[in-house]
């Protein structure tokens, strides 16, 4: 991507984050970059084209996060991925806050997002199954219950930023991660809790 196009996308993403997805017009982006709308239109013919390119860029980052699945064969793997999700939410809050607007105005982008959320849920589910086979998660838990826990974890990732914004709070990575880990605690075995305290809680303290 050319340097100017890159600048336009960065400015558009910043404006989407600050003002919301639907409230941003080409004029706003041009003003922000101190260029004319005509110049902007030379690079992207309309807002649709900007949004589409921005989503491609975001899609690449999401794929990179998904590809970290099973980077290590223990609980650190999940913790690491949660950290990446947090960074993503911080960088692109509009991706999750403007859900309904995107669904109404850009159905094809909504489909892409649905695909990502579906993959995220499957990954959570499979990770729980894997930890169950390692006896880190209680063997008594059924696959239906695991699926529900994975679904809850997904919901937290999607709505965590909105929740914080409603309460006018600025969250921290540790809070975000904890709100997801807490979903798992009731199902962790003794060995699972030991692993959690040894590998994750101790690292948080160092941070």
């Amino acid at each position, binding site marked *: 991507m050319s340097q100017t196009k890159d600048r336009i996308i960065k400015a558009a993403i910043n404006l989407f984050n600050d003002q919301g997805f639907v409230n941003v017009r080409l004029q706003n982006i041009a003003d922000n970059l101190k260029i004319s709308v005509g110049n902007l239109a030379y690079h992207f013919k309309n807002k649709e084209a900007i949004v589409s390119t921005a989503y491609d860029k975001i899609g690449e980052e999401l794929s990179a996060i998904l590809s970290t*699945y*099973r980077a290590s*064969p223990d609980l650190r793997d999940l913790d690491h991925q949660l950290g990446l999700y947090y960074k993503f939410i911080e960088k692109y809050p509009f991706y999750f806050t403007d859900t309904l607007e995107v669904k109404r105005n850009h159905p094809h982008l909504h489909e892409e997002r649905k*695909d990502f959320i*579906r*993959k995220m849920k*499957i*990954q959570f589910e*499979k990770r729980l*199954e*894997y930890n169950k*086979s390692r006896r880190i998660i209680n063997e008594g838990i059924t696959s239906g219950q695991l699926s529900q826990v994975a679904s809850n974890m997904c919901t937290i990732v999607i709505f965590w930023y909105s929740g914080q914004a409603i309460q006018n709070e600025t969250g921290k990575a540790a809070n975000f991660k904890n709100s997801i880990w807490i979903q798992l605690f009731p199902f962790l075995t003794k060995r699972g809790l030991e692993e959690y305290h040894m590998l994750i809680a101790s690292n948080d303290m160092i941070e």
Partner: protein
Amino acid sequence: MKVYVDRRCYEKLMDFMNIQALLDLKGDFVDLDLFYSDEWLLDSAVIDNVVERNGNWDVFLVFAHVTDPMKLIKRKITRFTSIKKAELAANYMRRLAAKDQRGTLKVRNAAFLNCNN
């Protein structure tokens, strides 16, 4: 190019990644015996291999065990600017290195246990 996979396919992929046997494991020192205990080189077939690289032709010799061809070592011997010289040198090198200069020690294709499917 974007490739979309359906839910079932993605689930299978994740299941596949969960298989413990496919994880990278630490190697063992025994694995390096291939290099340290080199008696097996006595019964190896020598295969010459000329490869064009950066405008030159590299001469490689491959030493493969006659009965267990997965046990092999490939070494670069020299390089030439002409393919004819490289092939000639490769032939001499092979005859020099091989135990049986007539080249009767050969690796059978079947010994690789290839699956033809």
